[in-house]
Structures are given as structure tokens and as C-alpha cells.
């Protein structure tokens, strides 16, 4: 190739990329929302003398151009692939990909966070439960990194130490260890959560501690095969969609769920949510401060109160057989001081079930 041809080739190739993407970026209509990242995208910033002089326009313009850039998801995938396969880095945005699964680097154990969580649980117990409830059961859901990380050379938080901490420091509760009843395949490949059809053993262990029975005639049904979990978007890796399968029977199908915030009544499984930005919200309609499930098929009037995070959404239906009423509380969204107005703790069974990811970063719990 002659030198001149090489020069033309270089200039044209790079100019096509820069000017082509420039024109595309300028002409392209704005997108409102990133489906893969599950977040709204930055809009064109306010342009005024004030926003220019204080630098807000420039700062927001950079966010806007990053968010609205043509082929944004494709470019993010290019980065993720380069990070893993070209530069050999073990993680991208603190996520690692191994054995066909994505997990988050979450270490070391934050003892202050555990203490903060312990204090919140103890306050709840002393305020509402002491001398009123039948029993309190506590358990920690291991992050899937616990199963994936150590076996593949990734640093993981000391889950055993976390379990030991709560076992020793929540004297009012019976600790149920479920980490031995799960493995890495019980979690979605590109999501943080566990799969409902794979957690029946864990549910049984919790029910046993609560002195309640599991359902016997559950049927597996496919809800969707187009599920992209939260790590799918964050990792930007081109991974296939997954299936969401749910377990149900006529008793579960007949239950009603009241959301105290919205006043909306749904079933245990919310099919509208399968089309939402997070189809995992299919289970109990996703994040909610306070839910009340009524079980018309229950053979007693027992009441179960579950303090939970998002992991609780998919396991809660499996625990409902023996309870006429199940109250589901998420103290990330409701101040404990308000609970007395809505929840009757008298003679209730209480389950506190939280994931290690939340407990290791527990400052989100309201005081």
C-alpha cells in the first residue's frame, strides 16, 4: 500500500467514526429510559447564563451525551468485553462473570453495618414483639457470590462470620441456617435473586422453625422467558434472556395481596409486572413498604409477619399455607415507628429474612 493511500485510509476511517457518530448523536431523537440499566436517561440540560457560569450546564451536558450516545448499549458491551477478554481484568463495574453467572464483588464484611442492622432488629423486637409474639425466626440469604466467588478465586465476604454474628447477637430469635440448602444454580445467572423453584428446601427449613407446613401440590409454570436480570444491564455482557418460573396451586391462586401504600389489591403473582422494567417484581408486585396477604384456604387463624428485602418476595408465597394472614414489611421503605398503626403483633409468628448484600450495607434501614 502506498503511503498516500495509507494516509487517506487512516483519515477517512477515523473521520467516518467521529463525524458519523457526531451527526448521529445530533440528529438522533432523545431516549427516555434505558431498559438494560433500568434507569431514566439524562435529558438535554437547561441552558442559561446561570447554568453556564456555575458549570451545571457543562456537567449535565456530559451526562446527557453519555446517556444519549448512539449505540450506547453496544458500546457498553464493547467495554465489558474488552475489560474481561482483552485486558484480562477479573471484574467490570465490580461484577464478575464466571461459570455462566454474574455476581457482584461484595467484601469485606462490614461489622459496623452488621451492628447497625442488629440494633434495628433489636429495636423492632423490643418495641413490638417482646412478650407479644409467639416466636421470632431469623435467617440470612447468602449472596450468590458466596457459592461462586471462593470457588473461582474471587474475594467474598465471610458469610459464616455474618451468620455467627446474628446467631449470637439476636438472642430473641431462632437462627435458621439456609446457606447449606442452596447452591449457585439456585440463583438467576444475570440477577442478584434466587429462583423460586429452587428454594423450596430453604422454605421448608424456615417453615420447620416456624412450626408450619409447606404446600404439597405446587405446580411449576413459566411466567416469562424474556427476563433480563439487574446484572445483565450493569454488566453489559450479551447474555441470553432467562426464564421466570413460579410455583402455584389453587390455594395460592386464591390469595389476595393488599398494598397499604397504593391501596391496590393484586394476587400473589402480579402478571402486569412481567412487562415492567424489573420482571422479578412479578413476585408480590416487587418492592413495597407494607403488604397484607389474605389466605382464605387457611385452616387456622395464624398470623405471620415477615420482615424482608426483595429476596423475601419470591419465598414468601411458599410459606403461606398455614397462615390466614401474612403481613410483609420492608423497613427500608417504612419507618418502624409507624408499624404499630398497621400491624398487630399479638400472637403472631415473625420471620426476619434478609440477604447478606443488604445486611452488609444496612444503613438503608430506617430508624
Amino acid at each position, binding site marked *: 500500500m502506498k503511503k498516500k493511500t495509507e494516509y487517506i485510509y487512516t483519515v477517512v476511517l*477515523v473521520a467516518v467514526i*467521529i463525524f458519523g457518530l457526531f451527526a448521529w448523536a445530533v440528529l438522533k431523537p432523545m431516549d427516555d429510559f434505558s431498559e438494560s440499566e433500568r434507569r431514566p436517561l439524562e435529558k438535554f440540560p437547561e441552558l442559561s447564563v446561570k447554568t453556564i457560569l*456555575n458549570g451545571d450546564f457543562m456537567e449535565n451536558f456530559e451526562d446527557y451525551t453519555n446517556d444519549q450516545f448512539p449505540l450506547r448499549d453496544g458500546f457498553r458491551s464493547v467495554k465489558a468485553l*474488552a475489560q474481561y477478554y*482483552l485486558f484480562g481484568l477479573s471484574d467490570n463495574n465490580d461484577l464478575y462473570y464466571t461459570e455462566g453467572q454474574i455476581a457482584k464483588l461484595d467484601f469485606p464484611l462490614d461489622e459496623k453495618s452488621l451492628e447497625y442492622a442488629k440494633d434495628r432488629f433489636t429495636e423492632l423486637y423490643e418495641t413490638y414483639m417482646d412478650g407479644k409474639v409467639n416466636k421470632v425466626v431469623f435467617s440470612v440469604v447468602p449472596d450468590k457470590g458466596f457459592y461462586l466467588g471462593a470457588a473461582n478465586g474471587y474475594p467474598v465476604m465471610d458469610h459464616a462470620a455474618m451468620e455467627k454474628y446474628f446467631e449470637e447477637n439476636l438472642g430473641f430469635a431462632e437462627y435458621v441456617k439456609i446457606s447449606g440448602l442452596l447452591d449457585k444454580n439456585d440463583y438467576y445467572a444475570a440477577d442478584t435473586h434466587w429462583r423460586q423453584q429452587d428454594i423450596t428446601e430453604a422454605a421448608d427449613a424456615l417453615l420447620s422453625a416456624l412450626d408450619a407446613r409447606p404446600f404439597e401440590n405446587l405446580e411449576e409454570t413459566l411466567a416469562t422467558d424474556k427476563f433480563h436480570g439487574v446484572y445483565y444491564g450493569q454488566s453489559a455482557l450479551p447474555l441470553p434472556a432467562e426464564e421466570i418460573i413460579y410455583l402455584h396451586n389453587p390455594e395460592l391462586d386464591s390469595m389476595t395481596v393488599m398494598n397499604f401504600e397504593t391501596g391496590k389489591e393484586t394476587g400473589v403473582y402480579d402478571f402486569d409486572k412481567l412487562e415492567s422494567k424489573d420482571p422479578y417484581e412479578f413476585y408480590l408486585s416487587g418492592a413495597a413498604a407494607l403488604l397484607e396477604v389474605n389466605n382464605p384456604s387457611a385452616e387456622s387463624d395464624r398470623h405471620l409477619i415477615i420482615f424482608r428485602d426483595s429476596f423475601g418476595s419470591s419465598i414468601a408465597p411458599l410459606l403461606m399455607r398455614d397462615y390466614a394472614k401474612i403481613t410483609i414489611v420492608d423497613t427500608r421503605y417504612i419507618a418502624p415507628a409507624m408499624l404499630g398503626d398497621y400491624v398487630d403483633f399479638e400472637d403472631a409468628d415473625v420471620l426476619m429474612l434478609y440477604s447478606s448484600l443488604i445486611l452488609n450495607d444496612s444503613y438503608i434501614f430506617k430508624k
Partner: protein
Amino acid sequence: MLFSSIPFLYYFLPAVMLCYFAVPKKLKNAVLFVFSLVFYAWGEPVYVFLMAASITFAWGFALLMEKAKTQKIKKIFMIVSVCISFAFLCYFKYADFFISNFNAATGLSVPLLRIALPVGISFYTFQIASYTIDIYRGDAKAKRNIVDFGTYVVLFPQLIAGPIVRYVDIAEQLEHREHSLEKAAYGIQRFCIGLGKKVLFANAFGELCSIFRESSEQTVLFYWMYAAAFMLQIYFDFSGYSDMAIGLGRIFGFTFLENFDFPYISKSITEFWRRWHMSLGSWFRDYVYIPLGGNRVSTPRWLFNIFVVWFLTGFWHGADWQFIAWGLFYGTLLVIEKIWLKKWLDKAPSFVSHIYVLFFTAIGFVIFNSVSIGGALEDLKGMFGLSDIPLSGTETLYYLKSYGLMFIAGSLLATPVIKNVLKKINATSLGGKIIAFAKPIGFAAVLIIVTGYLVDGSFNPFLYFRF
């Protein structure tokens, strides 16, 4: 505005190129001047007026110097002009340093000014000073046209982080410069190399440094990984910026002097400083060291001259004691080399000299990147196992494994090995054809990958912005 940002790459750059190549020759400097002001105002909307004032003073005093009837008056104008430039620098960069040290020495509580440092002020102040001194010395003629002079000062490729372009080196190019396909192709290649160095390597090593700082695991090995990562970060960051500046300059017809020449292959600290930030070294040599008498003086005076230069070099990098300590650390090493060690190093096996240079540059950059003198001592204690910390740990080994390939690739790219191999392949008939075909694709690929990193909003600071 950062070169390594979407607004620069895909908005500013195409816009400035379209305008620049569309206008006639006589308007090209005006286009560069206006776009450079926008470039600067993007990050410093208020301080652009400060820079405009600096330009106006320097331009006016240069004209006055040329009209001065006596050498004495000319000298007064030169001193006033340089003092004004440095007064701005002192006020914005060093005022709080002096106040806090004054408070510490006297026990008083004079309030700190807490003024934000105008980006690039250390660089453009030195460029303006070189112009003023060159005019005074008669090495160059004062610019009549303030736009042409302003273009020299604010020229966006080198405005923020150098290289420090001396007026005499581009005076001619400001009026007469050629544009060609060859220059554009070279400029693009050089820009892409710099962009890749910055985004793909400097940022990755910078992230490792941040991880180290935030980690609760402190081990001897992690301290050394941090030291190595920072050495590579600062090299790829700063030399990457220089490559981008030189490349952009070439696209617009300018030829800036080189700023880096594989400094980590040096066999002595003396050689290291001939290869590292060459434009700053030559500035201090020509405007401080030689006017002080250089080495043509008595030994005590010569030592004094060296320490003055290295004190100022450290102080130029930051208004804090650790920067001064870093400068004096190099001053001391250079004196030791000049008096005794250099002769020994020349005879020593190459690997010994290389290890010597890498060891002391690692120590130097750990001091440089510390938050205080106390912090530097803590870091050095950690490196040498004097802090009662373990040799290694889980997190350390994870990051060693994770960054292993980056360390190998970064170390190779910081030497001329790959460049030399490519040169040899290029010298063969078949190899030359393959490289001619693959090179543009490679640069385009770098641009695409870098865009992926930028769109993802990755870690992206520019170390030399703070100077």
C-alpha cells in the same frame, strides 16, 4: 473539557475541525482562538476572564518592551509582566499554602482563601513567562496581533496539561504552517495512541490505586502494587495527554516538541529527567538554572542552583510539602549521581541501573501521590514492611491476578519494545503491507473501545489537571 470525554471527541472536535478547515488561512488562528476559549470556559467558565487578563498583560508588556528606549526600561517591563503572571499563579495556587504555614509557625488563625485552582494555570503561566523572557532577550519578536498571541497561549491541544510550548518554537508556525494529509494521518494516529494510553491504561491503573486507598486490607505486596500502578498511571496519563496534544497540534499544522521518551528505560535518574516531562525540564534549565549560573560556578553555588531548580520543580507540581519533598528527593539523587554514583552506574550491568531507576522513581511517585509528608512516610513504611502488616492477603492476590495482564502490557508499552518490533516487521515487504493495512484499523478499534469506556462512564480523572 477533557480530551477523553464524549463531548470533546464527538461534539467539540468535529465542530472545530469543520470550522477550521472551512475558513480561509487568515481566519484559522481566529477559529482556534475562539474554540480554545470555549474549550477552556467549558471547565472554567469564570476563570476564562483571568486567562484573558493574563494574555492581555503579557501581550501589552511585550509591545512596550519592544518600544522601550533603554535596556533598563525593557527589563522593568519584563519583570513587571513576569511578576503579574506569577502573581496570579501565586494567588490562586499558593496563597493557602503560605497562609496555613504562616498560621502553623505563628499560632495565628488567618483564614484560608479556599480558592479553586484554575485549570492549567501552571502551564499557561510558564508559556506566557517564556514569551515575555524570549522577547526581552531578543530571541523572538512581539506579536502585534493579540489573536495570534492569544492563540499561542490558549491553543486547546496543549492548554490544560502541556507540553509547555515555548513561543520561539511555534512563533513561525502561528503565521505560516502547512496542512497535509500526512500530517493529519500522523496526528490522528498520535491522538489515538494518547487516547488509548489514557483511557485504557492510565484509568485502569488509577482505579487500582483508588481500590488500594479504599481497601481495608493493607499488605506489603498491595503497597508495592499500588506504587507500580501509580508509576504506570502517571506515565500513561501524562504521556497520553502529551501524545493527544502533539497529535491534535499536528492535525492543525503545528509541530510541538516531544514531552516523553520512554522514561522508565533510563539507567540513571539524570537520564530519567531527560526523558520525563521534557518541556518542563528544559523550561527550568533555560529560565532558571542557566540564568542562576548553571554548572559554571563554584561547587557550593552549583549545588545551590540544582536544589533551587528541584525545589521549584516540586513546588510547581503542587502547593504542599510532599511535592517539595519529592522535588528535593530528586535534587538529592541527581547531586549524588553527578558527584559519585553516575560513574559507577555507567559501569554497572544494565539490569542493576534499571532496577535502581525504577526503585527510586517508585519511591518518588509514592511521595508525590501522598496526601501529606506524614502520609508519604506511612506509605513508605508499608512498602518496606515497617507497619506491622502482613506480606499478602486475599484481596491483594485477587487484584494481583486481576491486573496481571495489565501490568505486563503496561510495562511493555512503557518501553520501546513493541515499537521496535513493529518497526522491524514494517521493514520487511510483507510485514510493511500488513502493518499499512492493519494500522488504521487498529487506531479505529482503539477509538471504538475508548468510546465504550467513556459511554460507560468509567473512572476518568486527569492527574495533571491539578497542576
